[in-house]
């Protein structure tokens, strides 16, 4: 009964929003915003084709895969750099003193502000998109990893020392696992930012990708296409987040309080 109630509440609200949307479009008589039904038709065409048979028909997989490549290219790059860097910055005060002021200065700069420079460095194309996604995912991963390392109970280091564990093996056997809950928080945040930034990244003039579909929809004044792209990004981002949560819950099975 509890479960039914939860599902009814969770699904009921978006359903109500869709009805409201439908009513609002009809009552205002606008031609700029499509009804939910028109978006559903567009979605069908985008996925399977057979309705409009234009450049976007049946291309969902092409665009989705292109975007995912950039999202995960940037995300894994950010994780591969952010986690190890965070571990050493968190544990080695000298490095912290060396790097912290620079990182603190660079962090508040919005990723979108990097767009022009990124186009200078990487040209117009997917590499620019990967770079922007990387920038967006990097800071949450780095900062949460640093935080995780710094908040490890010092007694655990003492316990490890007394059991004959120090130096590099301390990193692998104590620092990394103890910081894992925070690292996962960072990965999850960074992953969210990566999906958010893909539209910005694909504004840089790439021919494929969900971001480019949305930009094309804007240029062609096709709001149904824009909304379809938005929905695909939302659903894909949500499903991938569930995957990360499942991984998080498995890796952190020793700490139920950190389950998502």
């Amino acid at each position, binding site marked *: 009964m509890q479960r039914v109630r939860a599902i009814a509440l969770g699904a009921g609200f978006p359903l109500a929003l869709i009805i409201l949307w439908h009513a609002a479009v009809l009552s205002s008589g606008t031609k700029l915003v499509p009804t939910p039904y028109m978006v559903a038709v567009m979605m069908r065409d985008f996925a399977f084709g057979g309705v409009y048979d234009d450049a976007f028909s049946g291309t969902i997989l092409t665009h989705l895969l292109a975007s995912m490549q950039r999202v995960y290219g940037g995300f894994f790059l950010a994780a591969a750099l952010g986690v190890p860097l965070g571990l050493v910055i968190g544990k080695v005060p000298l490095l912290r003193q060396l790097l912290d002021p620079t990182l603190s200065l660079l962090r508040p700069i919005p990723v979108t502000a990097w767009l022009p420079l990124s186009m200078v460095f990487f040209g117009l194309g997917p590499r620019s998109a990967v770079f922007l996604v990387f920038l967006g995912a990097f800071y949450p991963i780095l900062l949460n990893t640093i935080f995780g390392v710094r908040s490890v109970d010092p007694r*655990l280091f*003492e316990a490890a*020392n*007394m*059991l*004959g*564990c120090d130096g590099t093996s301390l990193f692998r056997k104590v620092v990394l696992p103890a910081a894992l809950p925070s690292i996962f928080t960072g990965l999850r945040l960074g992953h969210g930012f990566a999906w958010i930034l893909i539209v910005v990244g694909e504004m840089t003039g790439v021919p494929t990708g969900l971001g480019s579909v949305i930009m094309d929809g804007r240029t062609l004044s096709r709001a149904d296409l824009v909304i379809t792209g938005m929905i695909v990004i939302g659903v894909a981002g949500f499903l991938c987040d569930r995957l990360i949560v499942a991984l998080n819950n498995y890796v952190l099975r*020793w*700490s139920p309080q950190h389950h998502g």
Partner: protein
Amino acid sequence: MADRRPFLHVRDVSKTFVIDNERIDALHKVELIVGKGEFVCLIGASGCGKSTLLRIVAGFEQPTSGDVRVYDAPITGPGSDRGMVFQDYALFPWMTVRQNVAFGPLQKGLKEAHDIAGKYLEMVGLTKFADRFPYQLSGGMKQRVAIARVLANEANILLMDEPFGALDALTREQLQDELLEIWARTQVTILFVTHSVEEATLLADRVVVMTAGPGRIESDNPVRLRRPRDVSAPDFNEVRRTLTQKLTSHVSRRQLKTAA
């Protein structure tokens, strides 16, 4: 057994902390000899430096002057010969009970680490819980794991910092009995910090009373009660009363002094 050198020798140890430009004399010229296989309790009001002394013996802190020696060899840092049992357990939460206990032997590269862990888990009665994570255990069970962990690491000096302070009365009594049994079986030397006079009287061969400001040893009292000890016996109460007087008389004298 004819070794005439003192087993554990705390030689003229002083420790000064500087916190916010204020000097705190945690320990002042502390001299203590503990024989092999002896069970020594340190008691005293908070701030008397008993935990600091224990941490210096563990090698987690360095004395400001003086040193601690085991068979004339000065202690320079944490070592597997001395195993600390912390009040808050300091188990590795991401490891199962068995992995926690096997950690020390594995660090030494012993192939039979898991057999060693099994042996000590049996000694503390946790064989059935070997594959659980620490969060799935009660406080008493966690402390048993912590004891098994240092024993598996072949520590011959157990340093226990109010190990049963966070446990309920029943569990505490049970663990006290188990500790005495383990002590008799393994012949380890135990240095045990507590603020409970009853606990000290029950467990110790010698009770060392410490006082604060600066932390130093006030008196060293052999407990000549036969084991197993009965907390309700008249002679037990006699010893406890004497020790309580030594502890409180000094506390109240000091309070009078500071009040004056």
